[in-house]
Structures are given as structure tokens and as C-alpha cells.
């Protein structure tokens, strides 16, 4: 017979999850439902007149070639942010793990950027790279490189990726570092005795054991890149030049909150929602299979 603790009443478990459910309903389900409803409406900014238009907002979106090109911009942006964010922070964590003197100081310094608000991070970086007065621009100009992210799309993309990654590296670092610390020293030592060098030990032992952490961070970073980066883009490039840094989330922000086109912006949020749900399902179905939980 199975031995497990049971509660006699059936009300208690529901009561215990009720706060979490309430929060989910209030902050996730309700706004998501609102977005769905807005997406089917044609409405003036003040909401004084509203008309049901069915899928017209979606049709208009997918007929717009620029909306479709915003998908590829988003994919490029998100993969750059996620991949470079994870690689850099893993590298830093691996280095910090080997440091013996002043380890605390390294950790603290590496965690600092996380406390900076996204918009401020973007402003800091765009000051450094400002086409008219930036320090980095000035230094690059001395090397004969003309930096002007107001005109050069590749440079603009580099700048927003840099600012977004810089902000997220601390968060990733924290998890990787904790993960590395949790690896039993005996395993590493055994490998060392067998003659494995630091690089081999890292790829052969540390990395596979870190896979739950890496998977978790992959999901979190993708969500970050998809949803949390519009303040960075707004402060650094405003989506420009042309449309080169106009990601889906920034488009929603620009058209809904600045342009007050609520119908179209609602439809775009629904599309984005679908994409992220699909991505998360794919990750859990296929990527998670390769994760080794200890």
C-alpha cells in the first residue's frame, strides 16, 4: 500500500493555491483576455466609440510586409541576446568559480548591472555610443571607424543587443555560479586524477551537470528578449534606423502606447503571445529531453 500524507478536507489545497491563482488571473489571464477582445475592435483612443471588426486587425497585420520583416528582426535580436547572454555569463561564472582570492568582489561587481533599470542601461550605453558626443564613438573615430547607429542598422542592432545582454548577464551569472558551486568537488578531482585538463573537465563534467540550470536560463532569457527589452530599444534607437531594431514587442509599445492604435496593438500582442507559447511548448517537448536532472 502506498504511504502518503493526505488531507481530509478537499478545500484546503484549493485555499492554499488560491492566492497564486488569483494573482495569475488578475495579472495574466485578465490582461490576456483584454488583449484578445481589443484585437477584434476598432476603437478611437478615448474608447468613446468601439466597433467589432472580427479578424480585420489581424488581416491588416499580415498584409503588411513590414510586420512580417519585424519577425525576422525579432528572431535575430532574440537569438543574439539569448545565445551571447548565456555564453558570456557561463564563461564569467566558470572564471569566477576558479578564482580563489577576492571572489566576493568579483561576484558583487558582476551582479551590479542587474540592479540597473533597463531604460537606464540603454541610456548609459547610448551615451557611450552617442554619434555626436559618445566616448566610444570618439575612440572609434580615432581608429578610423565611423560609428553612427542613427544611420547604420547593424551598429544599431549591436548596440541594443549589447545593452540588453549586459543587463541580463548578471542574472545568468548568478544561476550559473550557484550551479557550478553545487557540483561535487569529488567529481572534479576524480577527473583531474584521470588526467583531464580544466577545459576537458568543464565540457565533460560541469556543462552536463549544469544542464537543468542552462535549460531554465534559456527559457527565462528568451522570455526576457521577447518581452522585457522594449525600454532598452526605446531609449537607445527608437526602433531605427529604418526598421532595423523594430522588434515585435517594440512595435506593440510604439503603436499601442505612443500611436494609440489599440486595435492593431492588441492583435500584435495576441500574435506575440501565440509565438511565445509555441516556443515554450517546443522547449519543454524537445529540449528538456536532453536535460539531465540529478
Amino acid at each position, binding site marked *: 500500500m502506498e504511504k502518503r500524507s493526505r488531507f481530509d478536507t478537499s478545500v484546503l489545497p484549493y485555499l492554499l493555491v488560491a492566492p497564486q491563482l488569483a494573482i495569475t488571473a488578475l495579472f495574466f489571464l485578465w490582461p490576456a483576455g483584454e488583449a484578445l477582445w481589443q484585437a477584434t475592435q*476598432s*476603437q*478611437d*483612443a*478615448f*474608447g*468613446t*466609440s468601439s*466597433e467589432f471588426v472580427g479578424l480585420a486587425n489581424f488581416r*491588416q497585420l499580415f498584409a503588411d510586409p*513590414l510586420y512580417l520583416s519585424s519577425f525576422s528582426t525579432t528572431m535575430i535580436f532574440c537569438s543574439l541576446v539569448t545565445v551571447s547572454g548565456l555564453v558570456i555569463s557561463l564563461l564569467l561564472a566558470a572564471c569566477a568559480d576558479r578564482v580563489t582570492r577576492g571572489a566576493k568582489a568579483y561576484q558583487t561587481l558582476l551582479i551590479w548591472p542587474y540592479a540597473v533599470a533597463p531604460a537606464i542601461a540603454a541610456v548609459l550605453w547610448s551615451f557611450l555610443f*552617442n*554619434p*555626436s*558626443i559618445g566616448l566610444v564613438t570618439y575612440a572609434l573615430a580615432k581608429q578610423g571607424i565611423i560609428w*553612427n547607429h*542613427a*544611420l*547604420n*542598422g547593424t551598429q544599431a542592432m549591436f548596440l541594443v543587443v549589447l545593452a540588453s545582454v549586459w543587463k541580463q548577464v548578471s542574472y545568468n551569472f548568478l544561476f550559473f555560479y550557484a550551479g557550478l558551486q553545487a557540483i561535487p568537488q569529488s567529481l572534479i578531482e576524480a577527473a583531474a586524477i584521470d588526467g583531464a585538463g580544466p577545459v576537458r573537465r568543464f565540457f565533460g563534467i560541469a556543462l552536463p551537470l549544469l544542464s537543468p540550470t542552462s535549460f531554465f536560463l534559456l527559457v527565462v532569457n528568451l522570455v526576457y528578449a521577447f518581452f522585457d527589452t522594449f525600454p532598452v530599444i526605446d531609449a537607445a534607437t*527608437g*526602433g*531605427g*534606423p*529604418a*526598421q532595423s531594431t523594430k522588434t515585435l514587442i517594440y512595435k506593440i509599445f*510604439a*503603436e499601442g*502606447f*505612443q*500611436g*494609440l*492604435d489599440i*486595435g*492593431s496593438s492588441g492583435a500584435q500582442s495576441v500574435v506575440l503571445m501565440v509565438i511565445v507559447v509555441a516556443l515554450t511548448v517546443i522547449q519543454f517537448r524537445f529540449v528538456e529531453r536532453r536535460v539531465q536532472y540529478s
Partner: protein
Amino acid sequence: MSCKPLFRTISAAAVLAFGASTAAHAATEIQFWHAMEAALGERVNDIANDFNKSQSDYKIVPVFKGTYDQALAAGIAAYRSGNAPAILQVYEVGTATMMQAKKAVIPVYDVFKQAGVPLDEKAFVPTIAGYYSDAKTGHLISMPFNSSTPVLYYNKDAFKKAGLDPNQPPKTWADVEADAKKLKAAGYSCGYSSGWQSWIQLENYSAWHAAPFATKNNGFDGLDAKLEFNKPLQVAHIQFLQNMAKEGTFTYVGRKDEPVSKFYSGDCGIITNSSGSRATIAKFAKFDYGVGMMPYDANVKGAPQNAIIGGASLWVLSGKDPAVYKGVAKFLAYLSTPEVAGKWHQDTGYLPVTQAAYELTQKQGFYDKNPGADIAIKQMLNKPPLPYTKGLRLGNMPQIRTIVDEELEQVWAEKKTPQQALDASVQRGDELLRRFEKTGN
């Protein structure tokens, strides 16, 4: 939200109960939401304080709500939840959005009429009042407050170094190019730059050269207006600027005020930007600079015509007590007195909104002490406005400006020809206008 009306009833009852003894001191509070940052915000607070001290019936409460788009979004959200301020400052490109929201807005003319406060609409500078007036009745819908026009700033020290006359700002576009070339030759990395390209290089360029920006008198005569700034006049101008960009005499550094820092750092010898940038330039420039009118093309007949404004106006939102609107009318009337409007103009670099404020400022000798401060207003009064140079009244205008930014950036990067970029802007902009037209009906 649902407890708000209840709370109001209770507080109203409380006020009634105490009414007998305190009626004489109970000032009606009037919320005024604005987007005037830092020093400008302090000036707004001063004006409100002075007004509050001048009488005891009303109390204006100014609240800073962020940038223009944030303030507008906040006002709209507040209106939707029933907590709208009585007065909301809205930027000029939001004008069509506000006019379309007929239930949410009370025209300023009606506010004055119902409150029994006289309003002399003729006192306002026509090109400013025209921007905010009903095209059919000619009456003011919102209250002109802070308006600016594009002007040209030039570095006099750099002009001297380049062998140019420091007292002669470039008058025509040909002059701009010639002067920029000399500045380049004298070692300056950037000859000419410009901010707000849609506003300056297309909207104002069109008006300054007596050409329409959109049909239906730039949208004043109906929501079915179409953009028409892809005509040979504008294409030639953008081509001219692209050529300057190719030869390195025009440097593009950003969509907004970025050229201002490029100017006061001494990199750019000539820029065109808002007259409202004068205070910033005066603060940071470590050299002698001058202000000139917007350049024009000498071969275009009728140029220069008149400039059109940027900036913001004050809107009165519906759903308040009549007593509140009486106070609103009195406050708005106070704002347009020559003393208050004149001081606002002198402190900020925004235009004097009334003729009387302009004349008062002249009389006080302000322009003699601050040469160039009157350029902006002179451009507005240059010629009586034509029906299609009064301003713009186009829906989704903030997004249309973004479209123009995106397309012109491809011109400066030489990925599109001026004709292609302007055609694309017009086509994409027209789609937004049709969307706006639909939501309006």
C-alpha cells in the same frame, strides 16, 4: 474603481455639512496635467501659483505626467476610468486624435461661453490659433500654450574660421550647402545637421514653400485627406539633402534633438532644430552663435511663405462640474494675458501666442538684449497663412512621423532614392489615415 463614486458622495456630503461655515474658503481644485520637464515644469508651477494667489475661488494643481506621449496616454487612461484631469496638455500631432474624441473634449470656445468669460480669439497669432481651431466655425478648440517653429542655428566662431561672414546666416538652401562646404574645408567634421526631419524637412519645408503636405488643406477639411508630400518640390529637396549627405556636408545623427549636442559640442557648424532648443544651446555652447530663419529655395515661387508650429496646446476634458469649467476658463484667460504669455515666451523660447504678448516683449526691449529670439515669431508672421499652410490635422500623426523617419533614414543610407522613400511614406501614411478615418465613424 467601484468605491470611487461612493467616496465622492461621502465627501460631497461632508462638504455640504461644513458648507455653511467654510463655503467662503473652499477653493475648487482643478487638475492640470502637463509634459513640461525640469525648468519648464517649474515655470508652469510658478504660473499656477501666481494664478492661485490672484483669486481664492479656484486652485490649479499642475501635475507633471512625463513626455508628451506619456502625458497623453495617462490622460486617456484616466478618462477611460473616470478620473480625467480638467486640463490636459497635448502635443500638436495629437490634435486630430483629440478632435476626434468629441465626447471626451469640450471645445475651449464653449468652455469660455458657458462660463461667461470673454475670449478674444482675434488676439492670438493667426498661424497659432489656426492650428487649434475648428475648420468650419473658426472657433478655438484647444488653448494655444507652448508653440515652437524650426530655426537655423550657426556657429559664428566656426564661420569666422572658415572665412565666412559671422553676421550672415545662410538664407537659402544653396547657401547652406556652400557654407557647409567651407566649414568642412576648414576642418569641421560635420557641416550641417537637422533634427525632427519630418517636421522640418517636409512639413515645414512644404508650408515655407507654399505647398500642401496633404489634400483637404492638410486635413483641416476632412478625415479623408491624403498625403501629398511626394511631389517634385519635396522630392527635389530630399534629393538635395541626399547629395549633401553623399558629399559629407550633411550628417544625420538622429530623429529628435540629437543635432543640438552635435552643435554645442562644436562639431556641426549649422543645424536646423526647434526654436525651443535655444535655452539648451545658450547654456552649453562655449562659442558665439547666431540664429537665422529656416532656409528656403530661391527658385520656388512664393517662398518663404510661413512656418507651421510644433509644441502643444491645452485641452479641456469633459465630465466635471460647471464650477470647475468656470475656473478653467478663468485660468486659460489668465494664461493668455500679455504679461503671462509674454513672460512664458521670454523664459522658455516658445512663441508668444498673442500679438499683445509679442508687442509687450518688444516694448520691454527683450529682443534687443536677446538677438535671434524673435526669429521664430517672425517666421510665423512672415505672410498671412494660405489655407494649406495653417498647420496639419492628420490622424495617427505620431506614427506617420515615425514612418517618414524610417524612410528618410534609408535615403541618407543610400538604400532608397528620394522618390522611392517619399512614395513609400505617402503610401504607408495613407493606410494609417484610412485606419484613423474608420475609427472616427
